[in-house]
């Protein structure tokens, strides 16, 4: 079994940003992502997730380090100023590096 070092980028944001964020993921070269609905509270208030428009979404995407850097830089400049959003990375090991 051979594993490869990759970056897991986790983005938690308001549901309204979904289309824009998933477009960004494609643009910077991510091959796929996992998305789920979450609720929570932060500096922009509480999102109770009672109706689809008022939910937060969590997007998890695994990409090579260079792609993660570009993604986070664009998130910081283009998204953080206008959307309720956080993003963070973690080191992960994956099988089949070409899938990411």
């Amino acid at each position: 079994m051979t594993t490869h070092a990759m970056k897991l980028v986790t983005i938690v944001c308001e549901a309204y940003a979904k289309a824009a964020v998933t477009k960004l993921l494609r643009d910077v070269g991510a091959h796929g992502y996992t998305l789920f609905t979450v609720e929570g509270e932060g500096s922009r208030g509480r999102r109770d997730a009672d109706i689809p428009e008022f939910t937060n979404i969590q997007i998890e995407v695994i990409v090579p380090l260079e792609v993660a850097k570009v993604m986070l830089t664009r998130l910081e400049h283009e998204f953080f100023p206008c959307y309720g959003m956080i993003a963070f990375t973690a080191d992960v090991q994956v099988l089949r590096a070409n899938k990411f």
Partner: protein
Amino acid sequence: MEILDAIRANLLSPAVLFFALGLIAALVKSDLKFPEPLYVGLTIYLLIAIGFKGGVAVSQAGLAEVWLPALAAMALGALIPLWTYPLLRYGGKLSAVDSAAIAAHYGSVSAVTFIAATNYLKAINQPFESYSTAFLAVMESPAILIGVILGKLATKQAGEGSVASLKQAMHEAIFGRSIFLLVGALVVGALCGDAGMKKVEPFFVTPFQGVLALFLLEMGIVAGRRLGDLRKVGPFLLAFGIIVPLINGTLGVYLGKLTGLELGGATLLGVLSASASYIAAPAAIRISLPDANPTLYLTSSLAITFPFNITLGIPIYLELARKLYSSP
């Protein structure tokens, strides 16, 4: 004192009482919560039921009768942002992009408010044109587009990015799930006509009031959760959220009479003009004018105007229509 009677009749209906119950549940921080799929399911039911019924009514009345008031409704929806924008910008001293965003919400419409109004008219045996649902369908999008354009012009955002986000907002405003379902059900209803209605009546008509009561309970909770934000929006928007619907409602009732609607239909056009969107408009505005502050537009439309219309506004617009139709 007719107006007080009209208001009492509205406040004591199951739908409005359940709405109040929802508000209370949110205020006392009850853990009462609808699962999100139930909310989605109820909206789908209500939109299809009202769209289908409206479509059948269009097929019975014929397009010749419907097109003029529908066109007037559409024009009114598009024009409302043009007068509310300067009011917000210069009267309320709000930023250009916030003014445009709020103006879009008030030109667009709330389907739930419309449905509650038809329910009220039915409960007090006031006849109305069932094809009024067509006005709901045509009034949702134009104001959103006008609002987005106003916002883009005011903030001098031009170029490719702005065209792309305008396109996205248009897509949201025209093919968003609520407008898509409503227009789709209208077309299906118009094609099926009365024969089709008989087949689906036990499902879409008989349980309708109960479903609406359930849905308004949920909307009470959703609106109630926003009441805390009232402190953040300031006195101008508080007043705006009540006075502007009254003015727009009056315009709608007048326009209804001018275009040949009966008293009930004119009331509904008043309700539509007075209502503010809190689903379709925020979704489109958040994408196309992300710099606008959502607390301002969502709180005013969802926590001020929506509860006002559901409780007091609807009977007030009916009384306005009664006054107008009884004068020579």
